[in-house]
């Protein structure tokens, strides 16, 4: 029995369930609806209290001068004007976009790895999968610490290896010209395992018959990959792209950990070139105690993510195939 059969089986099942039909037959607005509301109430209330209400409050704060211990004064759009005038905002937007672009470039890499790991008869497949997934479940603090050691310009293992082939390495996490790429590389390494799992599931949902037919028609490996695997994997790729993009646009912890020094992150000369929008939000709101300005940054970021996600959903019609 192929993987495709197992996927298809539950779909046939749910259609023939007698209970499913019974629910549909009941008139709408009956007592079931009341129960339904009751059942989703905990979730809805939680969402309203802990997400929607704070978002609404935040929106209000972004138009105020917020005291560090409460107390708001309405100042209109002054925070947004200040945002435009602040040079570090522009740099943070650029940094965030570069980081996001690099993370998105990691997706083809994950597709490639997933295809390789999905080959039949590959030995130790589960060991590889576990290894690739390990960075996803490791604490970011531990990850950053490890990479700080490896990136160390004077004693790091990367520069040691480079020196063996006669190349003089750099201070990867402290040099303004490379630090963002060094951090982005860790980002790819961390998210590879997650995307891999999504793609493996997607690959296993592609019916084997297609591959058999392609083989009979004399299609080579590359052609099969491009004409069968990629189009049929496109829903998974789309999903992974959206998630990666949203996560990357909000990136904070990795930058914070990688830039920090015992005397604070501001001592790292690479900070201005690595600081993301979310990092700037943290700095303004919680270090400089300017909550109103911080709220404005958070809203710009939210708008940013909404627009980018909207564009992605519009574009998906051109390349995503729902089998």
């Amino acid at each position, binding site marked *: 029995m192929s993987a495709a059969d197992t996927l298809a089986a539950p779909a046939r099942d749910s259609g023939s369930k007698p209970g499913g039909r019974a629910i549909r037959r009941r008139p709408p*607005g*009956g*007592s079931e*609806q*009341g*129960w339904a*509301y*009751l059942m989703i*109430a905990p979730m*809805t*209330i939680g969402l*309203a*209290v802990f997400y929607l*209400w704070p978002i609404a409050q935040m929106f209000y704060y972004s138009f105020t001068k917020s*005291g*560090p*211990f*409460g107390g708001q004064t309405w100042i209109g759009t002054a925070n947004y004007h200040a945002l435009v005038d602040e040079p570090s905002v522009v740099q943070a937007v650029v940094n965030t976009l570069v980081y996001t672009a690099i993370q998105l470039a990691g997706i083809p890499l994950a597709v490639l790895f997933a295809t390789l790991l999905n080959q039949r008869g590959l030995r130790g497949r589960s060991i590889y999968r576990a290894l690739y997934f390990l960075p996803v479940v490791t604490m970011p603090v531990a990850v950053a610490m490890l990479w*700080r050691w490896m*990136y*160390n*310009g*004077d*004693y*790091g293992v990367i520069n040691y290896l480079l020196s063996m082939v006669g190349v003089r390495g750099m*201070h990867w*996490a*402290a*040099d303004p010209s490379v630090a963002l790429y060094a951090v982005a590389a860790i980002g790819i390494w961390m998210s590879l395992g997650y995307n891999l799992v999504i793609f493996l599931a997607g690959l296993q949902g592609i019916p084997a018959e297609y591959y058999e037919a392609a083989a009979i028609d004399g299609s080579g490996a590359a052609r099969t990959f491009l004409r069968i695997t990629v189009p049929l994997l496109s829903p998974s790729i789309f999903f992974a792209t959206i998630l990666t993009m949203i996560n990357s646009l909000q990136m904070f912890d990795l930058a914070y950990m990688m830039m920090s*020094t*015992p*005397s*604070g992150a*501001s*001592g*790292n*000369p*690479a*900070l*201005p070139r690595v600081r993301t929008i979310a990092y700037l939000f943290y*700095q303004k709101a*919680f*270090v*400089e*105690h*300017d909550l109103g300005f911080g709220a404005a940054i958070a809203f710009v970021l939210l708008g940013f993510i909404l627009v980018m996600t909207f564009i992605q959903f519009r574009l998906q019609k051109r390349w995503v195939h729902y089998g």
Partner: protein
Amino acid sequence: MRNKTVAWSDPTPGGVRRRSVIAAVGMGLLLSATACGSGDSPGNEKVELSYRIWDKNQQPAMQQIIDKFQAANPNIKVTIQLTPSAEFWTKMQADATAGSAPDVFWMNGPNAQFYASNGVLLPLSDELKSNGVDLANYPEALTRIYSYEGKQYGIPKDFDTIGLWYNKKLFDAAGVKYPDETWTWQNVADAARKLTNESKGIYGIAAPPFGQENYYNTIFQAGGYVISPDGKTSGYDQPAAIEGLRFWTDLMKAKASPSLKSMTDTFPAQTFQSGKLAMYYAGSWDAVAFAKDDNIKNDIDVTVLPKGQKQAVVIHGLANVAYAKTKHPKEAMKFLAFLGSKEAADIQANTGTVIPAFTGTQETWVKSMPQYHLQSYLDELAYAVPYPVSKNTSAWQSKEAEILGPAWSGEKDIAVAAKELAAMMNAALQKEQ
């Protein structure tokens, strides 16, 4: 049962349903609000105080102090809340906003005016005398950090100053005389150049852009200031301050210090402890770690900071403060007074982690590491300058190193960077008013 479900799906659209949702949300908020409050207790009943600190190493000493205090005041019970320093201020700000900050807690310089000016701290001035507290018992420059608009908000707990640590082995190898109290900036610069041996990875000094350990001291020594006495303007664009900063950038230029990037990757204290740094300006808090390090502990010693135009050192220290909205201001004040007493200071001194602020109790700390001339840290009290603070210190302080960085790595002249720094700081100070 049946009736209930009908009520939930009331046909009037939005009516009951919306109201019940609002009610449920309201209930949730109400519950969370009441959860924070706790009952008042009148006069003679047992009073409970919370005391929030961030240093785990000091917890045993604090507990000893509390035990003594409770023995003398059986109607007061004090509980320690240990909050790691990384989240201490975030939590404190949230608690103070919600009106549920601890009764008594530790305060540091950068946050003192921030909390005092926002009405979070209990003004102590009038209560000090009646509780037997005499501020003359603490270093004057330290006490000043915790006064705001003529009122005293904190009683000093401990303090730290900066000293010049040096590695005798490296000095001997280079044939340079050890630093002493007669040293000037020139001596440091000359020695640093002589001691540096780049091919062996040995540097004369570490010159990172650290405020408290490095450039605040030299700015004061050059006769400059970081913040004007009225707290309204920056002193970074004054010629004296620029001189104080240039002392460090000149050392960087001479390559007598590891590069800025290098010091970002490997913290200077580590380099000093690995025996590859001849001189290092370090706080009194570093002494314990140095004394424990087998690699260097027998090769090092400490002396006072070399003088520029004059002698100066930055002093910082913690204070104990009380929450303005505490339910038991009287008891909190009593506890604060005991925390500031000689008895409490002696307990702190005996544990050897920090220098107690109470004058005359510091000898124990000096004797705890007799192999080093720790007395230097106390000798400096004669010319100590308070750690520079304002109402929102971190708004400008957190950006100092970022603006100075390009001057440290040689991309910008220090005078230009200092002027940018002054402009940023003046804008931040303007915002505070």
